[in-house]
């Protein structure tokens, strides 16, 4: 069943509110500010409410079903986070309040800075960036400024493996630097021979390397320590993309491996709302080398008065966001960490990795898994390719999964795996849920052989059928506003 657009239920003269008569003198809007042609929908309250409630019920969410969207860590967001974020002392703050009146909120931020630094193995943390890619930009700008301060202004190249998140090369370009891609080897690690020759070629112009580890193949790079050493020996710095941090909490600290800077996706790893439920938060941790370059203000305890103060590090790249980051999101991440404790966080990662390996094992032999001989981390990449159903592609399988009540995995990413199906179950899912998902994928592989058209025309049970993605991309209609009937 399709839900009509709000404009299609619009009828001239209907209104969802009846305002009381105006009891103050009316002041007309300035000349030129009044529009006659503003086509706002006219809808009665009950129709308005039903329209949006129906739309909300069509929505697929982590609270309604399994959401194995690879590299997005769509983990369940515990409800206690929401309770904490609604405590009036946090929820009703104003960002311009004087320090003395918000010591509690600043205390939460200080503790979160310290806990994230401890979990990541870093010397300092900023909570300002509003998302992962924003954290990347913050990190690379710090790397650049640090090298400029050393007088090494000719450095303008960042190496990015082809198994990195797409935001890594984008961040490099946004920072005015040049991307040089490093290929993966047959085991899915960074190709060390090529890395060495690229470092030899670009050594004196190297800002550093951005490493997503575990990478987008869901694999922990077996040579990570050596990679970092090689970049450091060439005078470069190493950025860690922490989007896949959910695999290694309490097991490995990226700072201990030698990473100079890493962002944390609080909206992935630390269970704050994600996507449409955001906003995100991309805190950034740095080693001692970069700690003076952190964006401010960050929270520090005054030695003299013992009170908490806003602090701008001496060589700071400046603010990267208004005020102090997405504070209410920070409350949720703080709550998550405190509810789990150190042991609990380690268990989160162990279960996330166990769940991914269980699914990988169940799908082995049904779908190709290019690196399926290795133990995966929190996710793995299969391929929507079936030898005896040559006409079927990943998109058909993903669409058919919707008919089984599952959100499809990430498709066609990473780009280095043709017809990729990138599956990340997260730690919270039960064996029953994992089995139901694996059973569905196995059944779909069977359907691909016996009734391929069923897949090609899927989904059949979704509110809208197969969308014409070519038309949607080429023939953009971004504004729908006809006149009311």
């Amino acid at each position, binding site marked *: 069943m399709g839900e009509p657009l709000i404009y299609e239920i619009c009828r001239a003269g209907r209104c969802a509110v009846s305002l009381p008569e105006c009891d103050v003198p009316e002041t007309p809007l300035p000349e030129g500010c009044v529009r006659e042609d503003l086509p706002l929908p006219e809808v009665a309250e009950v129709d308005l409410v039903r329209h949006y409630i129906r739309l909300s019920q069509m929505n697929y969410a982590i609270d309604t079903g399994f959401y194995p969207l690879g590299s997005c860590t769509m983990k369940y967001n515990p409800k206690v986070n929401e309770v904490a974020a609604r405590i009036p002392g946090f929820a009703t703050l104003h960002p311009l309040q004087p320090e003395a009146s918000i010591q509690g909120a600043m205390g939460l931020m200080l503790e979160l800075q310290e806990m994230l630094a401890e979990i990541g193995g870093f010397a300092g943390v900023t909570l300002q960036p509003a998302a992962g890619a924003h954290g990347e930009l913050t990190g690379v700008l710090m790397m650049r400024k640090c090298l400029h301060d050393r007088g090494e202004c000719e450095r303008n190249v960042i190496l990015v493996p082809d198994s990195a998140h797409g935001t890594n090369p984008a961040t490099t370009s946004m920072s005015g630097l040049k991307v040089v891609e490093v290929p993966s080897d047959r085991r899915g690690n960074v190709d060390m021979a090529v890395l060495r020759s690229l470092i030899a070629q670009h050594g004196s112009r190297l800002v550093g390397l951005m490493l997503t580890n575990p990478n987008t193949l869901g694999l922990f790079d077996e040579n990570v320590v050596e990679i970092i050493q090689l970049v450091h020996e060439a005078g470069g710095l190493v950025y860690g993309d922490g989007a896949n941090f959910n695999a290694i909490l309490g097991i490995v600290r990226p700072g201990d491996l030698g990473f100079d800077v890493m962002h944390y996706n609080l909206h992935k790893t630390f269970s704050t709302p994600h996507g449409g439920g955001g906003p995100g938060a991309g805190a950034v941790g740095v080693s001692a080398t970069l700690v003076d370059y952190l964006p401010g203000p960050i929270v520090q305890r005054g030695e003299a008065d013992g009170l908490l103060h806003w602090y701008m590090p001496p060589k700071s790249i400046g603010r990267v966001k208004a005020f102090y980051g997405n504070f209410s999101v920070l409350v949720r991440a703080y709550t998550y960490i405190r509810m789990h404790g150190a042991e609990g966080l380690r268990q989160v990662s162990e279960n996330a990795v166990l769940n991914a390996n269980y699914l990988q094992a169940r799908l082995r032999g049904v779908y190709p898994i*290019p690196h399926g001989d290795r133990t995966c981390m929190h996710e793995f990449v299969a*391929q929507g*390719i079936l030898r005896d159903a040559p006409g079927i592609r990943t998109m058909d399988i993903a669409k058919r999964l919707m008919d089984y009540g599952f959100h499809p995995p990430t498709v066609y*990413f990473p*780009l280095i*795996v*043709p017809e990729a199906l990138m599956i990340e179950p997260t730690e919270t899912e039960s064996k029953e849920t994992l089995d139901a998902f694996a059973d569905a994928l196995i059944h779909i592989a069977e359907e691909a052989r016996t009734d391929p058209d069923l897949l090609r025309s899927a989904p059949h049970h979704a509110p809208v059928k197969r969308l014409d993605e*070519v038309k949607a*991309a*080429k023939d953009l209609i971004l504004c729908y506003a006809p006149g009311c009937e």
Partner: protein
Amino acid sequence: MSYKYDSQARYARSHEWARLEGNVAVIGVSDYAQHLLSDVVYVDLPEPGDMLKQGESLGTVESVKAAEDAYSPLSGEVIEVNAALEDHPEWINEDPYGKAWLVKIRPTDLSELDNLMDAAAYEAFVIEEEEKGGH
């Protein structure tokens, strides 16, 4: 899968081709590349007068699946770009060696052709890639 190859063209490992026509080199992406990309919906090309370097990005080809850089198989100055692709990106799927050429350049170093594969070598390379990819 079998793909089309232009025997007159030479190919880069990143799946672009270059074909000499007099003292001009015509550049495009291969049939295998368009097949991997699936339906192309947008093409971003350089400007006439831009200098391209072998192996460096000349523009972007975007499909419903992905946006990929196209790398120039030869160095040289852009003398003409295929502006019609702006309205007809689907030509890349339909006729990758013909009307969907991307740019024409005046090559600056013809010895760079030695870094490219002929059609037979490229076909062997594609078969190897396919096996690696699990197709």
